[in-house]
C-alpha cells in the first residue's frame, strides 16, 4: 500500500505543476509599474539596474534576469498599447520622440530622432536587422585595439537574437510594388539586392512601422524582450527619468531621479516623486545621446579618457522620390522591404522607404496648386534612400545648463558629402532604370524635378551643398566608444567602463565607429555578450 497518488493515478506527474498562463500574467503585471501607480517617493534594491529599455537595454535585462539576477529595467517613457499608437505621423512623433520629434543637430543642421517609450526606437523603427560585413569588424579591431569583437565571436549572439525575434527576410507577399520596383531596378543595372531581414512575425504590409505596428507583427522590444524579461523575473519601472548615477570610489552603487509625467519632455515641470534604486551593478542603455549626458551630470563619471560625449557619428541619410507613369499603391507593403549592400565599399547602403505621406510630402517643393499637384502624384511614387558611413563626420553631445535636452553638435565632412552626392546619383539611376518618368531629389539649389538621367548628373556635383541637402540621421554612435586602450575609450569589450568595476554601457554609443549598416542587431548582439559576462561576474 502507498499513499502516493501518482502511483494510483497512472503516469507520474512532475513534482511542481507548471504555472498556469494566468499565473505568469498576474505575476508579471505585478512587476510592472506605470505612471498612474506612483504615489510618493520610493526606493528599490536589485542586483542590476538597467537604464533604458531600447533594443540593447531590453536584451541586457532579459539575459540578466534569465541568469537568475534580480533586475530592474528603468524606462523614461511610457508603454504604448496598440490603442495608444497615433496613426498621424507627425502626432506620433510628438508622443514617441525626444523634443517632440523636432531635434536637430547644430553645425550641419540635420533632423535626428531618439525615441522615449518602452521599447525605445524599436517601437517606431522599420525593424531592419543587418549583420555588418567582416570589413567593419576588421576596421574596429585594428583601429580600436579590440580582440573579441568580430563575426566569429559575435555570430552566436546574432544567431540567438535572430532566433528569439524571428529575424527573417521580408517575404515577397508583403513587399508591395514600391519595394519590388527597387529590386527590378537593381536587376536591370546588375546591382545586387536582397529582401531586408527584419524582426517581424506575420507582417501584413500595412507600411506603418514608423507609427507603431497595429498588427503587433513587429517584434519591438515592448512585445518581445521586455515581456520575456518580466517572465524571467525582472521588474520594469516606466516613466522614471534617471538623473544621477551614485558611486563610491570605483563602484557604482545605484541611480536616482524623478517620476516624469508622460509626454512632458522630462523637464522640471513634468517631474513628480523622487526615486532611488541601489544595485550591485548599473547598466546604462539610455541611448547614444542620453548616456553621455547622464555620466557628465553625475560628476563627469567614467571620463578619464576624456572621450565621453565625443566622437559623435551618424549615418546621414538622403532620399529621392520617383514618379512612375502608373499607380504604385505605395501605402501597401513593408515599410522598408528591400536593400542593396552593393555600394558598402563606396560608403553607402541603399534601401526602399515609406513613411506617413504627410511626412514624406514635407520635402516637396513649391506652394499652391503646384504643391497640391505633387501631392496628387503620391500614389504613383516610390521613395528610396541611402544611408552613408560618415566616419569622418564627427560631433559631440553637450549638456546644456538649465535645459533638459542636450546639444548635438555635428558637422558633415566634405568627403562624406561626396559620398552622399554619389549615392543620390545612384538612386536616380535606379529610378530611371525602373521606369520612373521623373524624380524629385529634394535638394535645394538645383532643379526641383529631374526628367532625364543625363540631367541627374548634377546630383553628383558640387552644385549639391551640405546646407541644401535634406538629410536625416537616426542612427547615432560612438559617444562612449569601446576601445582596448583605457586612455582612448570609455568602455572595454564587455561594455564595462574602464574607470569603474561595475558600471556598464549597453547602447550604440559604445560602437567605435559607425557600422555602415542599420545598427540595431549589432547593438543587441553586443548587449547580449555584455549581459552574459556581467551575469558571470555578479
Amino acid at each position: 500500500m502507498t499513499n502516493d497518488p501518482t502511483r494510483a493515478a497512472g503516469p507520474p506527474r512532475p513534482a511542481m505543476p507548471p504555472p498556469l498562463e494566468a499565473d505568469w500574467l498576474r505575476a508579471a503585471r505585478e512587476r510592472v509599474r506605470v505612471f498612474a501607480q506612483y504615489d510618493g517617493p520610493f526606493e528599490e534594491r536589485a542586483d542590476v539596474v538597467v537604464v533604458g529599455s531600447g533594443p540593447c537595454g531590453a536584451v541586457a535585462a532579459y539575459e540578466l534576469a534569465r541568469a537568475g539576477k534580480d533586475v530592474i529595467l528603468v524606462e523614461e517613457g511610457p508603454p504604448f498599447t496598440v490603442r495608444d499608437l497615433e496613426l498621424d505621423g507627425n502626432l506620433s512623433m510628438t508622443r514617441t520622440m525626444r523634443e517632440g520629434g523636432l531635434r536637430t543637430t547644430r553645425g550641419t543642421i540635420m533632423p535626428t530622432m531618439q525615441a522615449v517609450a518602452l521599447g525605445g526606437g524599436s517601437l517606431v523603427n522599420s525593424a531592419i536587422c543587418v549583420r555588418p560585413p567582416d570589413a567593419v569588424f576588421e576596421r574596429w579591431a585594428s583601429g580600436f585595439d579590440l580582440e573579441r569583437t568580430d563575426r566569429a565571436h559575435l555570430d552566436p549572439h546574432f544567431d540567438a537574437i535572430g532566433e528569439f525575434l524571428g529575424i527573417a527576410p521580408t517575404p515577397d507577399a508583403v513587399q508591395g510594388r514600391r519595394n519590388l520596383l527597387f529590386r527590378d531596378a537593381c536587376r536591370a543595372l546588375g546591382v545586387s539586392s536582397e529582401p531586408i531581414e527584419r524582426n517581424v512575425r506575420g507582417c501584413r504590409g500595412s507600411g506603418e512601422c514608423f507609427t507603431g505596428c497595429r498588427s503587433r507583427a513587429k517584434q519591438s522590444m515592448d512585445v518581445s524582450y521586455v515581456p520575456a524579461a518580466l517572465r524571467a523575473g525582472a521588474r520594469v519601472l516606466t516613466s522614471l527619468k534617471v538623473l544621477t548615477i551614485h558611486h563610491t570610489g570605483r563602484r557604482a552603487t545605484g541611480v536616482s531621479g524623478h517620476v516624469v509625467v508622460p509626454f512632458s519632455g522630462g523637464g522640471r515641470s513634468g517631474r513628480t516623486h523622487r526615486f532611488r534604486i541601489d544595485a550591485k551593478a548599473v547598466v546604462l542603455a539610455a541611448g547614444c545621446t542620453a548616456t553621455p549626458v547622464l555620466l557628465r551630470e553625475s560628476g563627469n563619471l567614467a571620463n578619464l579618457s576624456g572621450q565621453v560625449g565625443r566622437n559623435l557619428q551618424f549615418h546621414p541619410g538622403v532620399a529621392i522620390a520617383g514618379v512612375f507613369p502608373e499607380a504604385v499603391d505605395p501605402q501597401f507593403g513593408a515599410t522598408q522591404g528591400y536593400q542593396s549592400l552593393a555600394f558598402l565599399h563606396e560608403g553607402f547602403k541603399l534601401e526602399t522607404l515609406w513613411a506617413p505621406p504627410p511626412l514624406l510630402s514635407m520635402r516637396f517643393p513649391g506652394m499652391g496648386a503646384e504643391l497640391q499637384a505633387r501631392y496628387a502624384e503620391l500614389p504613383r511614387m516610390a521613395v528610396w534612400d541611402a544611408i552613408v558611413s560618415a566616419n569622418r563626420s564627427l560631433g559631440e553631445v553637450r549638456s546644456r545648463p538649465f535645459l533638459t535636452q542636450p546639444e548635438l553638435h555635428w558637422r558633415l565632412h566634405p568627403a562624406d558629402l561626396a559620398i552622399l552626392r554619389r549615392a543620390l546619383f545612384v538612386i536616380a539611376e535606379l529610378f530611371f532604370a525602373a521606369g520612373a518618368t521623373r524624380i524629385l531629389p529634394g535638394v535645394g539649389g538645383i532643379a526641383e524635378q529631374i526628367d532625364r538621367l543625363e540631367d541627374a548628373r548634377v546630383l553628383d556635383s558640387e552644385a549639391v551643398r551640405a546646407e541644401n541637402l535634406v538629410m536625416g540621421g537616426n542612427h547615432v554612435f560612438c559617444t562612449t566608444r569601446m576601445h582596448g586602450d583605457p586612455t582612448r575609450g570609455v568602455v572595454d569589450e564587455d561594455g564595462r567602463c574602464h574607470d569603474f568595476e561595475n558600471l556598464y554601457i549597453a547602447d550604440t554609443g559604445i560602437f567605435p565607429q559607425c557600422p555602415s549598416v542599420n545598427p540595431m542587431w549589432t547593438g543587441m548582439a553586443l548587449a547580449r555578450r555584455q549581459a552574459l559576462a556581467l551575469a558571470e561576474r555578479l
Partner: protein
Amino acid sequence: MLGSVFTGLLIIGAAIVLAVASHRRFFAGHPAPPSGLAVLHRGEVAFLQAAAEVLFPESASLPVVGVDAQLPLYVDRHLAALPRTQRFLIRALLLLFEHLSLVLPAGGPGGRDRFSSLSAAARVDVLEQVAGHRDDRVRLLFTALRALVALGYLGHPENLRALSLAPFEIEPGVSDAELLFPRIGALPMSIRFTEADRTDPAALGPLDPHGPRLRAGSRADRLAGPPAGSDARRATP
C-alpha cells in the same frame, strides 16, 4: 520748466500712439477663433487660416482646400503635445511670419500690413520672397512653415482617402504588451485582455492592397477620449 513738461507730454503721447499702433498691429481685429483650442490665440489662428488659403487654394488635385482643413485645430493639437521649448519655437515662427511684411513687404499699398490682413495676392508675394530668398536660413523658415501646415493639410482624412493613402482598416493586434501594460495614464487594473485575446498576425495573411481604409483616420480615434480610469489631465497631451 514748461519745456520739460512739454517733453514729458510728448513722450507720453508717443508712448500712447505706439501702444495703440502695437495693439492694432498685434491684437486687434482678428476674428473669433474656433472653440476648443488649447494653445493658439486668435492672432495665430488668423495667420494659419491666411497661410492655408494661399498655400492650399481650391484645385482639382485634392478635395479639401486649405481653409476647410481645420488646420488651426490640427496645429493646436500638435503644439499642445510638444514640449515647452519646441512649442515656443513654433509659436515664434508663426509670429515672425505674421509680421514678416515689415521686413519683406508685399508689393502695392498696405504691403507692410500684417500677413493675415494682406490680400491673397500680397500673401503669395510675401511667401515667394521668403521661399526664394538668397539666404539659406530664410528659405528654411519657409520650409518650416510649409511643413507645419502641410502635415495637417495632406494628413486630413479626406485628402488621404482621395489619394488612396489613408491607413488600412486593421483589427488591432493583442500581444504581450496589451496583456501586460495599461493604456497610457491608466492603472493596471484597467487591463481587460487575457491570454485568450492574444492574436497572431501570421494567421491573418497580407492585407489586400486595395482593401478598406480607415474613414476617420486617427483624428476621430483621439477624440474618443482617454480610457476609463486614466489620469487624463496629467498624461494626455
